């Protein structure tokens, strides 16, 4: 076995490199590693939130949560929300990106306006949507009655499945601009020559989409889906502000359950256990994402 001897210059470069990344590593440890380890540690205790004092219970919190119906129903709600809103985000996002990629006269202004939902504060967005959905004075009910589609106002946020559909729709509205921007950025890098070659080869607009555009978008779509799946899975503020998890617990996802356990029931240990389980589920997405990006780097 041969050992690689570093020259003094190489050692000097290595030292400078280490010093330069040290602040980042320290901050990373403080804001990521410590809370993570702390959550796992807390999940092994029964902790009263206001005092953060409690007793060691080992894996009891995990045994309890796996036996609770509320956990499983929240997990299912979480999956329904994530799949529902993500599907809509992708369909609307790709569709809108394709429209904005065309040479249309309002393209520049539309590209700016489309970002509006993504940039607007969640609180503001939810207030507006609550007004739109309100069953007494909401504009949606008013317009639908005027159009003759319904005879009586519909309770969009206080009944199921309307509440889940509403939450999914607002989530899609709020986050689809991210998909638009990412897809649009990729669309702009697809060489025009590919479309021109397809036209000469006899492909129409639809065939061009399936044979040129979509295959070129595949890589970026995988990354978008993974990132948005992670972000949507842990979405809290939008759902909490819109329905509070209700009616009853119909739209209560795991993050809302964690919040309830931690700050309403004051069970920080249990809440940490939920959070750790959530993290484990998201780890699957993260592993796929990391593997995907790594394989892209390799090619």
């Amino acid at each position: 076995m041969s050992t690689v001897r570093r020259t003094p210059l190489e050692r000097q470069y290595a030292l400078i490199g280490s010093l330069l990344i040290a602040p980042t590593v320290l901050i990373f440890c403080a804001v990521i590693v410590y809370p993570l380890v702390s959550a796992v540690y807390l999940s092994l205790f029964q902790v009263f939130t206001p005092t953060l004092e409690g007793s060691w219970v080992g894996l009891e919190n995990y045994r309890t949560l796996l036996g609770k119906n509320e956990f499983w129903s929240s997990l299912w709600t979480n999956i329904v929300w994530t799949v529902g809103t993500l599907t809509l985000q992708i369909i609307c996002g790709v569709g809108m990106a394709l429209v904005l990629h065309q040479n249309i006269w309002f393209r520049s202004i539309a590209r700016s306006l489309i970002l509006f939902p993504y940039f607007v504060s969640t609180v503001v967005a939810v207030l507006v949507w609550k007004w739109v959905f309100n069953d007494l004075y909401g504009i949606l009910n008013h317009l639908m009655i005027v159009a003759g589609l319904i005879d009586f106002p519909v309770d969009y946020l206080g009944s199921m499945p309307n509440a889940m559909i509403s939450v999914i729709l607002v989530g899609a509205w709020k986050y689809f601009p991210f998909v638009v921007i990412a897809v649009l950025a990729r669309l702009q890098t697809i060489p025009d020559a590919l479309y021109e070659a397809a036209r000469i080869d006899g492909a129409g607009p639809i065939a061009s989409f399936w044979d040129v555009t979509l295959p070129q978008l595949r890589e970026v779509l995988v990354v978008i889906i993974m990132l948005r799946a992670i972000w949507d899975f842990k979405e809290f503020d939008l759902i909490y502000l819109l329905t509070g998890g209700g009616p009853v617990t119909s739209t209560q996802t795991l993050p809302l359950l964690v919040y309830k356990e931690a700050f309403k029931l004051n069970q920080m240990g249990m809440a940490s256990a939920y959070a750790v389980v959530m993290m484990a589920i998201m780890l699957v997405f993260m592993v796929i994402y990391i593997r995907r990006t790594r394989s892209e780097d390799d090619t």
Partner: protein
Amino acid sequence: MAEVVFKDIVKSFGSFTAVHGLNLTIAEGEFVSLLGPSGCGKTTTLRMLAGLDFPTSGSISIGNRVVNDVAPGERDIAMVFQSYALYPHMTVYDNIAYPLKKRGVRKADRAPMVQKTADLLQLTELLRRKPRQLSGGQQQRVALGRALVRDPKVFLLDEPLSNLDAKLRGYMRVELVELHRRLGRTMVYVTHDQLEAMTMSDRIAVMEGGKLQQFAPPNEVYREPANRFVAGFIGTPAMNLIDGTLANEAGAWRFASPGITLTCPPLTDDAVSGPACLGVRPEDVLLGEGPIRGQVQVVEQTGHENIVVVKIADGIRLTGRAGADHVWRPGETIQCAVDVSKAHVFAAGPSGQRLNRPLTKDQPRLAKEGA
């Protein structure tokens, strides 16, 4: 019939006119190069023929059919792009088969056609590979294969060799000429490389500023350039173009500029006394003897010859070719002459017309002449 006819073609992009009233007829089975510098309108012309751009006015016909309003896929043309434009997610096989698929050729019928094309272009071993796994030359052959597979009436080639290294470019030039000979199809080739145009084409359409400057066989474009632009654009090293004055002295035209005075070859009736331009190819400059006296400025050694730049007056230089065995030294005084029988006279201006009478086979060689 796959004759290609451009009739009064104008193409404007807003206030900018890229092609001005182009009239060009390309015979069936002919290999024609559209040659010119960047921005001359050659690629726009090809794109209009492909149906990727539309003429502002005028008509384009392929095989007696006006195709102005015909979609690219229905023009029975195939195009090889400068970037090859291979579908990156498809294998070589799928790339070649794609035009067949889009034309509704059954899967079972596609296989032998793709195989035949792959055999022709020596791509058989590569059929399962993706474009990114191929070298530039291989990608270029796949692009050709995609064009060849459905046997179109007209092949359009948009600078297909420009991304290849010099050695491969030379090889592919021969391959393309051989392919054209074998297929006998009309080919329209866009290039800014005069060597490609000269070596491959039956005829060259030289364009500049959106206008057709000359449309003639390579030899004629070289020997009888229609105007000063063509004269300067064709040939490496470029033709010596010397501004001076033309005067008629007792029926004979004399050209004079600082450092050089000579009797012109026979000129047409368009010749008038006044400013004019003398054009002399470097191979028609005789170095080492003659009445023109100058000073060697630069010597470029190419191995098989030396290219010598001689200053004959302030701002006037003559470039000549010399054998590799005699190395001239910069600063050396040198005598030289020009072969007047092969000299060209152009009217004044950047696109001044050539004023020489057309060459005939038996035209006598005149004696070398100079100051």
